[in-house]
């Protein structure tokens, strides 16, 4: 699963993959969030992304499209150590 990444002082980063990947900074906030909400529709492709991850003792880089061919449950949550 994913490539192992080195733990340096800089926090590893990921983000959306594809056409919009390098535009967020330049696009006005409101325009981005509007566009973005319209992107999530059942029956449509899940937007691809890469993200640094912790997995069983290692820091790795994960890309959603690596999991094509499998069912994926993608869960977001408010934060580590936040009770629920």
């Amino acid at each position: 699963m994913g490539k192992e990444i080195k733990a340096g002082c800089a926090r590893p980063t990921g983000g959306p993959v594809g056409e919009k990947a390098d535009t967020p900074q330049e696009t006005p906030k409101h325009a981005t969030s509007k566009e973005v909400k319209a992107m999530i529709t059942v029956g449509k492709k899940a937007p691809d992304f890469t993200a640094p991850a912790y997995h069983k003792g290692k820091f790795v880089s994960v890309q959603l499209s690596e999991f094509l061919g499998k069912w994926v449950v993608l869960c977001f949550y408010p934060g580590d150590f936040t009770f629920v």
Partner: protein
Amino acid sequence: MSVDSVFVHKMWDDHELSRMVKGGAPFPMLSDGGGRVGSVYGVYLEDAGVEARGRFLIDPDGVIQGFEVLTPPVGRNVGETIRQIQAFQHVRKSKGTEATPSGWKPGKLTLKPGPGLVGKVWEVWKTKMAFD
């Protein structure tokens, strides 16, 4: 996935999750600093700077089959998530010839949509089956 760094994920897994589940979190704990991925998925809460409890079911073709989004104080029902995956897998295997009615679980009756079933669902499917 949350806005926490992979370093905080490690601490949480080491100090708490591994005490709840043997061996710790079995899946990758993804980090989304700045909520960039969460914004694309519509779950990043800008005011709080965190992500809502969004859960997306993605099929083997990379297509989103379902999602659920809750505000932070209410936890999910994992059993329902698993039931939905089983239903989507069943429907996919049938290549669209079967559909799963409300409350369906593996082993229960499925419906075969077609002209013959129009107006006849009441004959084969009873309301109480939604609650069994």
